[in-house]
């Protein structure tokens, strides 16, 4: 996994609460068996009209949202289904961070595994940033994971929380599965001591 570095970016502003993963990528695009090509389907039903043409007023269809690496969204971003296609679509479009007052649990975990940083800020900071971007849509923010700092366009530095293990993984490019596989001995010992409650191969069901 690539290491997560500090960056400055324009911000795509989508101040709607409870943006669910069906909006981030509608379920009909989940019939794919690949991770690729999902960036074009990001926010599909908000982004394109009935004929499939981009809606010119939708935030990621126009500058600077079309080039932004940061998305500013409303509370409880990413609620709903567990589809990891949501962070895949966001990162393939070009986003590296989402700012909100809170994130849904499963989305947050999925995002961190895909180098998409969920940045939680207090409601007051969220409202201030929204105002600054209304006044100057081309204003930029700086995201620095190492210091866990979001720098607002006016220079205010805001500290944000990140799970320490997730932070280490992102900064050092550590892959979680590789980490898990190193604990083979402990897993085997656990299995030895804990017989399976269910053996899914034990009953042959009529086919």
């Amino acid at each position, binding site marked *: 996994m690539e290491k997560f570095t500090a960056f400055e970016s324009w911000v795509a502003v989508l101040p709607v609460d409870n943006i669910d993963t069906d909006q981030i990528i509608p379920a009909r695009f989940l019939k794919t068996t690949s991770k690729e090509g999902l960036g074009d389907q990001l926010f599909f039903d908000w982004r394109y009209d009935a004929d499939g043409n981009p809606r010119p007023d939708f935030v990621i269809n126009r500058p600077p949202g079309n080039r932004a690496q940061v998305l500013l969204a409303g509370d409880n971003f990413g609620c709903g*289904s*567990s589809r990891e296609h949501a962070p895949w679509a966001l990162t393939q479009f070009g986003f590296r961070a989402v700012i909100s007052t809170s994130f849904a649990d499963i989305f947050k975990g999925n995002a961190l595994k895909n180098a998409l940083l969920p940045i939680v800020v207090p409601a007051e900071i969220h409202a201030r940033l929204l105002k600054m971007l209304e006044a100057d849509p081309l204003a930029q923010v700086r995201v620095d994971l190492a210091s866990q700092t979001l720098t607002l366009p006016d220079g205010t530095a805001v500290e944000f929380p990140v799970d320490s293990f997730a932070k280490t993984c992102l900064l050092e490019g550590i892959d979680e*599965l590789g980490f898990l596989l190193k604990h083979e001995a402990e897993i085997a010992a656990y299995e030895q001591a804990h017989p399976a409650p269910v053996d899914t191969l034990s*009953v042959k069901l009529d086919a």
Partner: protein
Amino acid sequence: MSQPRTIIQKIWDSHVVCQPPGAPALLYIDLHLVHEVTSPQAFDGLRQRGLKVRRPDRTFGTCDHSTPTTPRDLPIVDPIARAQVEQFEKNCREFGIPHFGFQNPRQGIVHVIGPEHGLTQPGMTIVCGDSHTATHGAFGALAFGIGTSQVEHVLATQCLLQAPSKSFAVRVDGRLRPGVTAKDIILALIAKIGVGGGTGCVFEYTGAAIRALSMEERMTVCNMSIEGGARAGLIAPDETTFEFLAGRPFAPKGEAWERAVAFWKSLPTDEGATYDREVSIDASSLEPMITYGTNPGMGIPISAPVPDPAEAPDAVERETRRKALAYMGIEPGKPLTGRPVNVVFIGSCTNSRMTDLRAAATVLRGRKVSPNVRVLVVPGSQSIKRQAEAEGLDRIFREAGAEWREAGCSMCIAMNGDQLAPGEYAVSTSNRNFEGRQGKGGRTFLASPLTAAASAVTGVVTDPRPLLG
């Protein structure tokens, strides 16, 4: 004497493999359920690394999401869905995972087939690449949804890196009145705490009204925990649980059964254990619930008026609710009853079990569905379909003018051919009313099977209680 613990803590404690310094705990997973939509990229990941599935004997698969609900002697028409289902069956065969493929007579929705076959048992950790995995919590299991990266982690190691959640007691006391169901309990809870209300938490549902529910009704409640933001929700096992499990194909037998029951009886929360958060609901005060907006928290008693967005506490929420009503094409200030609907959907992992089908049948028996409404009744599994047919429910549905379809997620997720047309309204027994969830531009009112069936008969949103004998 050890600290009193909740059932959540007990299950957690007994599944921690180790606690590496500076990292979350390794949590052992007893049962991993896989389906066609969230697993293909995980199997690809295993191939790229040259890994096997560590414990195929703790893994079980079924196809459901992109699986059509059309007759099984026909091929899957949509080439992309067909490729996905075929890839799923191929992956399961290649990695030695027992599974119900498209034409298996036991195929069904992943959260229906697990309990149905006794795979789901108290005290277990259960995961699936699906947010409604909390359904299995009805048995006193710690069950939660995971993303595809984690599906790969569990396939490869049978473990997850996981931080513990907070505990959230949901007490539901009192007694449900006639015509009010488990679905109404969970919709009322989500309306009360909001769709983010349980974020970071595991719900434990307690209280007399929960104890009085059947296993199928408990599954309906736990199923929608995620719609209240909680990744998992569970109910301590009791005699109702044991009675349901006894004799199921994967349930323990003989002496093993006795040992299992003794263990299961040790699981309920200890006297004096504390929770991080608590909320109470009085079941006897509940009415049938219905949603009016575009998330499951936008729910109201069926006789209540749609709330005015102007009353929302802050600007973003006002805008969110205004946007929801605009999408739904409804005005605040009036109840939803009497609004015409185009489709009624009875099915999904929330409400597609025998109890749900019997409830719908009590309303539809001897009645006709409105000529303006398309009604889909979709059993949760092919086994349920056979049982319903043995009880004659299919005849009741067909004679009323409803479609009786094969098992699958169907119109809950609209990626399998069953979907709303743009602008259409549905009363749906599923779990999500998000924009476009049941088809692009479609508009969903979530409700119980009774309310759905009553609305099917009248062609408008209808309180079921006057129609019950």
